[in-house]
């Protein structure tokens, strides 16, 4: 089993890969470490045959993917336990689970899964991989990839501390809510969207955490008829 640090990297690479090609700089940012540290650690992962570096990017090998899913399974089970059993808040469980996940042996994992009544998703809505490494495919793509004129529906909000999700909730945007994309700001700027009768500007960083699926329905309303 890889060390705790390597596990953190595998987890981060897997999650980043869900959103597209993974670059070392991206990992440095997510993990909060310097670029040379990332390069060194990626070297170690490559030596162990867990990752490949096609054209400077980072990709998991089949063994690496298996290891990543294993750690993600432990992380998400731990989160589920912290929320369901201990009653901790959403916003606090991610960091706690990062500590707990490294201590869960396969036996404890199985017991936990039974105790939690075989949960399918973590408290943030992400699927929990099964013991043999199967994972439900995540549908949807980030709202940030939408183009002007798209009509979509929120599938989930990829936001570990729950801050964004709850802020959006106060504006009436939940998983299931329909969103119409009207304009994109210059230089890959914010998105101008309509939700119900209201219009919002959503920053790129925000939009990349909102996962959406195509929806049907009419496009953007106009201001002129509403006011």
């Amino acid at each position, binding site marked *: 089993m890889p060390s705790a640090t390597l596990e953190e990297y595998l987890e981060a690479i897997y999650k980043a890969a869900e959103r597209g090609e993974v670059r070392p700089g991206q990992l440095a940012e997510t993990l909060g470490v310097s670029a040379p540290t990332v390069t060194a650690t990626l070297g170690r992962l490559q030596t162990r045959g867990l990752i490949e570096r096609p054209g400077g990017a980072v990709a998991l090998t089949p063994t690496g993917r298996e290891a990543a899913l294993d750690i993600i399974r432990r992380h998400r089970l731990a989160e589920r336990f912290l929320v*369901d059993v201990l*009653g901790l808040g959403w*916003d606090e469980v991610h960091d706690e689970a990062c500590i707990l996940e490294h201590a869960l042996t396969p036996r404890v994992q199985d017991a936990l899964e039974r105790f939690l009544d075989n949960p399918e998703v973590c408290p943030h809505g992400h699927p929990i991989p099964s013991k043999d490494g199967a994972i439900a495919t995540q549908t949807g793509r980030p709202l940030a990839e939408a183009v002007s004129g798209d009509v979509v529906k929120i599938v989930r909000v990829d936001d570990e501390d729950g801050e964004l999700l709850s802020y959006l909730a106060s504006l009436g945007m939940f998983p299931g809510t329909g969103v119409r994309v009207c*304009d994109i700001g*210059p230089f890959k700027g914010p998105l101008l969207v309509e939700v119900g009768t209201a219009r919002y500007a959503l920053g790129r960083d*925000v939009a990349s955490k909102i996962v959406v699926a195509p929806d049907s329905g*009419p496009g953007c309303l106009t201001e002129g008829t509403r006011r």
Partner: protein
Amino acid sequence: MSSTCGTDGSGAVIRPDGHPVVALAGNPNVGKSTLFNALTGLGVSTAHYPGTTREVSTATARFGDRLIGVVDLPGSYGLGGRTEDEVIARRALIDLAPDVVVVIVDPLNLARTLYLALEVLDLGFRLVVAVNLADEARRAGVTVDTTALALRLGVPVVETVATRGIGVADAVDAAIMTAAAPLRDVSHRYDDDLEDLISPVIEAFASAECTPGGLAPRGAALALLGDVHGFGPQADAGVGAAADAVRSAMARRYGESAAIHLARERHGRAGTLADEVTVRSGSHGRAPRDLWSLTTAPMTGVPLVIAVAAAIFGFLFFIGDLLAGAFSLAWEGTASPVITAMVTTLAGEGVTSRVLLWGFDAGIEASLAIGLPYILTFYVLLGMLEDTGYLNSLAFLTDRVMHRFGLHGRAVVPLVAAAGCNVPALVAANDLPTKRERLIASTLVLFVPCSARTAVILGAVGHYVGWRPAALVVLILFAQWVGIALVLQRLLPGESRGLVMEMFPFRRPSLRRVIAKAWAQFREFLFIATPIVIVGSLVLGGLYESGWLMYLSEPLAPVVEGWLGLPAVAGLTLIVGMLRKELALQLLVALAVATSGFAGAELTALMAPAAIVVYALVNAIALPCISSVAVFARRHGLARSLVVLALSVALALVMGGVMARLLPALGMM
């Protein structure tokens, strides 16, 4: 109500004896402040909440023979503690314990704006709903059946057009009547399933000794469960345990956290209500995108942003300058002789009277010469942009660029305005959403050379040395500014929460409202900055007239002469320049005349060209003027102002010293 715990009771409200206190709540831009201004007029005071730079306005208003206390809560979308505004709004509600809350809703956005009304009801307050902007809605073919809404909510609902004062009296009547009514235990219920789940927390609060702010048990329970961060200091262990159990039960039952689920239920309820009471007439369906959407479409919006930024800059730079010149002339012709005569009558013609003239003639003039032409006009300009809803389009389009500096798109307005005058820019920076952004933007504003500093660059370098070196100075300042911005962003902890900003539709600006708001902001500048400018001027005048300033030049000599390569007297004018930045150059020229002994002397007789460049550079960087420091200190405290002042001096010394060596070495001068 239960007894209170967990609040410090810091809210000071004008509570006229036995008279009701009415709080106004609403989403941003629904006309809440307009209603507040329509209600009040007696004297507005502000309650400053610890740890925030946001203020809650309170006032006493007279209606016929009745007095009411009015509280203007910050505009917010909810009360769940998700943003600073939400936290302050809820805290003010709990601290000030109003007898009734008037929630202002927008008929064209009824579902989302009713959410806040339901949340107020949930907390256990008496409620009146004001359906504002009723005229605009009617023009768009939308009316709200107020009777039906009142029936469904069980509270009074009135229609208002706050900008024209329509319905305001009805709202006050309803509020006064409601304030006297007994408080109901449960105002509206969620479905049985949810109610059953949350009941243990309500029971725990009911048996606790106290509740936060003395809220009813149900209100306290919904506030606690609805808050992402846990709500205030925990009342007691029993409540905490019950809440934890209920949270995990809700998470299991609904597959999402308690706070999210409550928000979802409340939005659902608000949406159903809105559908039931909204009446649409005519075939106001969909039409091609109208003109206003051109402000956010990049193809048309970006040129417009550049035009608007250029207009603000040009207006402050040229028209402001023109007005300031005219004002100074008028001042010298009218007020100045009167003040001079008064001072000389009182204090004779000596050092004392000259010092007094520094403060009461030059000081007041300095304050007004910035205040009237730059600040008042800028507020009117900004108010117009804000009133139409254009500011948000601007923020939308510039967000990406501002992000590099750790700021939102909204920060573009203060930064552009700063090139005209720092003072109104600082006030505009205070509208940014988080404390961190306000601090970054305000600090950056102080390092943008305002028109007075630019005047020195043009007047000294441009006039005596050439336009190329003048352009070089501007370029250096810009590079330095970008550097400061990037360092600040790294230095100040925390990152800006991603942009989530409501885009308001076009609204015809109301000149009356714009002027009223501009005047209120200007009054604040006048009463806060002017006394500081007068005191500062008196101190500077005392130093100058007593000759002590010359003594100060001795310890400064190694720095000014040795390091910067400037004449020692030039260093003094830089310090005096704090009063008004362009004063530095005026004094320097006067000194050049005095030392070289003949009138019309060129500045070059006193200083080498390279020294003039260094002088203008140092003047532009070091020591922002007293007025802007006063406004900065008011928002961010004395300690931070001193840090910024010290930083400005240190940077000026580094840049000036390097330039003093580099320029001759490069043989440019």
